[in-house]
């Protein structure tokens, strides 16, 4: 059984994995912060959050990249560095594979949706239950691949 204490530690580790540290932050170091051995940390993290710490970190970085591509004026290269990738090529490849479109094209699609500078467009942040209003589907600009 998972104790409340361990649950809280895993939540804290998840917060850490979202951050982009100055230097490289190994999974071992995050596990130590969570006061668990790397083996137990990875196993427990996956059982609770449905993905490994590494997978979670990659996803968190891509989410942040999408946010920056939508709202910031950073270049794609700056976004890549800002979210913690060191190679533009591997960032772009991974982004395209996971999101379905390369970062520059993603930006071109989402930018027209931004109506208030600095505020995420509603199409990218659904309200609870509002998705139902869109059934059978009013495609957003972004889905018009």
């Amino acid at each position, binding site marked *: 059984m998972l104790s409340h204490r361990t*649950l809280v530690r895993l939540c804290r580790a998840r917060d850490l994995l979202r951050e982009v540290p100055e230097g490289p932050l190994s999974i071992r170091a995050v596990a130590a912060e969570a006061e668990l051995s790397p083996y137990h940390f990875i196993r427990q993290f996956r*059982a609770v959050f*449905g993905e490994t710490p590494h997978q979670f970190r990659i996803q968190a970085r891509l989410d942040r990249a999408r946010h920056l591509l939508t709202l910031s004026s950073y270049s794609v290269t700056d976004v890549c560095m800002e979210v913690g990738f060191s190679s533009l090529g591997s960032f772009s490849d991974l982004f395209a594979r996971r999101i379905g479109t390369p970062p520059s094209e993603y930006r071109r699609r989402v930018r027209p949706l931004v109506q208030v500078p600095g505020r995420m467009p509603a199409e990218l942040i*659904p309200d609870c*239950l509002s998705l139902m209003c869109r*059934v059978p589907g009013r495609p957003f600009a*972004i*889905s018009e691949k």
Partner: protein
Amino acid sequence: MRIKLNSIMVDSQDKALKFYTDVLGFVTKHDIPVGGEFRWITVVSPEGREDLELSLEPNANPAGKAFQEALLKQGIPATAFESSDIQKEFERLRAKGVVFTREPTNAGPVTLAIFADTCGNLIQMYQPNAR
């Protein structure tokens, strides 16, 4: 007016659909793309009425995410499902690798257990105790 639909926020709709169907055993009722990356997904329980639906909502709204994470850190379940044999269900889920923060515990009117849904929530499962 009737209660027919409830929703739960999930950090990934793909992961959620897998967990709520493959692991919990619910059945997909709707899975409709609604543009962008989001889908309108609802599941029903094969043990319950098929018109009582649970919607798996993306937690893309930062306010929703903050609320979900705060509940999890405090160990508070996001919702509760009823079981007619909680011990059997507990053993079935545990065998599938589901993590429990509380094993079946007699809490007076009900016996309850709490598990992680792999999508950022704790879920309570309960069985009313015979009087």
